[in-house]
């Protein structure tokens, strides 16, 4: 007999699962902190033109390497460009990379995983062996190789980061599909004559959402990190586009004299990842109350 039985579950008021999850999520201050930061970032990304004080690519060779001041809140870089403006526009790039890469991974991996888990047998075997192959090549290396093959650009970066994450999603989806597939309501649907596609779309996917949502949130974080890493070694987004990883890498050689050039982009990356991680953790707890301790 464990605590669960000692403390009887309180009778819960009937709410929709979504509201329920949100209520639970709202109870976690860290998750709320994460969500707030993400809102700020999304806001920056959407309204970059309106809120950034300068153009992110406007050079001012008379004001290079300026430390933070009233005019340039976060200082200027080696071309006299305003770092704050570049960070704000950089949010656009990073979020784009994060979400689209995860989108690619999710759609591809999710489909493969769902099909694999649902049909099992030979098809499952083949798909999962291919995933094994991809999994045994480290993500970063795979992404580098893909970018090297496709050439560096925003789109290719997203594809590379996305593809390298496909196996993760395929595995998760397959796992939850397998566990759901054997449940009674699926049997019932099948008995009622539902088509396979319908069962997958209507029953299996919605029911395997929880781990996917959590993994996707964390996945966006790791995609942003991955992309920044690639940009850091020069395989990412092309100048003069502002990208946090590239900004960090560009400021690297000035780190002793002008640490502000590396400090802020690094902070931006870290905060974003932190926010997504907090949110992901919060979502995990909210979606699966059993895990909450």
């Amino acid at each position, binding site marked *: 007999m464990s605590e669960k039985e000692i403390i009887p579950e309180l009778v819960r008021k009937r709410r929709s699962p979504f509201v329920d999850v949100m209520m639970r999520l709202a109870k976690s201050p860290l998750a709320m902190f994460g969500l707030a930061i993400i809102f700020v970032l999304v806001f920056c990304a959407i309204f970059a033109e309106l809120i950034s004080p300068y153009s992110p*690519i*406007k*050079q001012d*060779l008379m004001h*290079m390497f300026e430390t933070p001041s009233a005019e340039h809140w976060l200082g200027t870089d*080696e*071309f006299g460009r305003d770092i704050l403006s570049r960070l704000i526009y950089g949010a656009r790039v990073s979020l784009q990379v994060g979400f689209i890469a995860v989108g690619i991974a999710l759609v591809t991996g999710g489909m493969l995983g769902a099909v694999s888990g649902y049909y099992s047998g030979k098809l499952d075997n083949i798909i999962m062996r291919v995933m094994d192959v991809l999994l045994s090549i480290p993500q970063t290396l795979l992404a580098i190789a893909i970018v*090297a093959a496709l*050439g*560096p650009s925003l789109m290719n970066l997203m594809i590379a980061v996305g593809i390298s994450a496909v196996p993760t999603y395929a595995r998760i989806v397959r796992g939850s599909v397998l566990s759901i597939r054997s449940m009674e309501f699926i049997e019932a649907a099948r008995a009622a004559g539902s088509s396979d596609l319908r069962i997958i779309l209507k029953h299996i996917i919605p029911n395997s959402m929880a781990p996917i949502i959590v993994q996707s949130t964390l996945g966006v974080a790791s995609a942003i990190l991955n992309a920044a890493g690639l940009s850091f070694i*020069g*395989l990412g987004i*092309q*100048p*003069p586009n502002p990208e946090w990883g590239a900004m960090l890498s*560009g400021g*690297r*050689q*000035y*780190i*002793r*004299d002008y640490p502000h050039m590396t400090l802020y982009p690094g902070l931006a990356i870290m905060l974003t990842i932190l926010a997504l991680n907090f949110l992901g953790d919060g979502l995990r707890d909210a979606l699966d109350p059993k895990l909450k301790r």
Partner: protein
Amino acid sequence: MKKFSIIFLALILALSLAGTSLAKDTLVVADQYDATTLDPIGHNDYPTSRACSHIYDTLVFLNHDGTLRPGLAEKWEFLTDKDYKMYLRKGVKFHNGDEMTAADVKFSLERANTPAGSHIHTYSQDLDNVEIVDDYTVIIHLKKVNYPFFSSLVHSWGNIVCKKVVEAAGDDYGMNPVGTGPFKFKEWAKGDHYTFERFDDYWGEKAKFKTLIVRSIPEPTNRTIELETGAVDIAYPVTTIELARIEENPELVLQRKVIPSTTYMGFNVHKAPFDNVKVRHAIHALLDTVNIQRAVFRGVGQTPRSLIPAVTKYSINDDLPAHTRNVETAKKLFAEAGVNPATLKFIIRSNERKERIDMATIIQAQLAEVGIQTEIVQQEWGAYLNVLQQKQHDVFLLGWGLSVPDPDYAVAGLLESNAGTNYTTFDDPKLNEMLVKGRSLPDGEERAAVYKEMQLYINEQLPMIYLHNDEAIAGVRKIVKGFEVDPFEVHSFRGVYFEE
């Protein structure tokens, strides 16, 4: 747990102490990259040339002022324009104890023309054969007249290897080099450092310290830090940002020298609108090349005015006026060419070298002032070269450095029609003719005139815009004496000693 962490700390302490004790019989140098191989003909890059220069000797040595002095060849005479007789030094020992003879010289030079030497064929391709007169005399026969060839013998490709050892080692030679140089190979932790040791049977002046360690530290900041902390004695190259720091440090000395190298922005002259010389000049007029250079390099190097670097003979660089930006001229030229700059849209390509990207970024902004839209595409080296070779590019940033002190190499590799590295696709019979003529003349007034005319002609045609003429800069600890930075960037430690 506590106990464990104490042990751990003690371990760190002990090991770190063990790591620091270096008797001053060791010179530690920080280079940017590691050597790729220690086979002198298996490469054509600076870090490797530098590494080879410690292990091997060439027949002739290069002075810092660009003149030559005897090396493994005590003296030489030009029998004809194409046949050079070389008298070899006697009693020169390889690191394995064998004596160097004419056979080794013949083998070394002729090997460069085999596929193993494809990196340096530009230098060696006019070599016909090497004739052995006796054990200590050889005659180098060329296929055709090529005066710059003799100077090229100072290049890493002219290093003399031991025939017996090379033949025995085969493909593995690059890791087990044997030369006649003042240092012999000891160990090589690839990517990290190589260690050479004094060769006590060296024919010339022996090294004044026992061990030479060259570490590869790609980050300029890290090189400087290591120099400041005394972990290395000499560090190069030093980048702009680090200059003041080294200059201001009383324990360090900064050495700098302008070198024969040019960074340029090339046009693909076979592609419209760059096929129009007026457009090329118009773009040039739009660019404030002097200030671009200043903004990016902040006091290092200068903006070249001629393709032949200022320090190379026959250069007219210093006689020409500096380029100034003039938007009106540019507009006029565009009008004459019938091109509306606001409709222009092209790609500026570069590899991912920071300074080049920086220059491209400013160029992009300056071109945008008249409405020219450009996109910067940076690629890693392999893909970049590949694109250039396809000859479908628009505009590109690239550098060219001379390792041989002859103006021919400054022009031929970039603009001669059949040159493999002619990425501007410049194809001009008049220039080709001038190049051939220049090669066929011995040094003197007549040759000087050819190159002067050539430089003016190139500036008129403007297949490329000159952006930067670099300096060789090294940071040296004060206690290190006898080191002088080499304008060809093959720095030598033969005379280095310590003064405590």
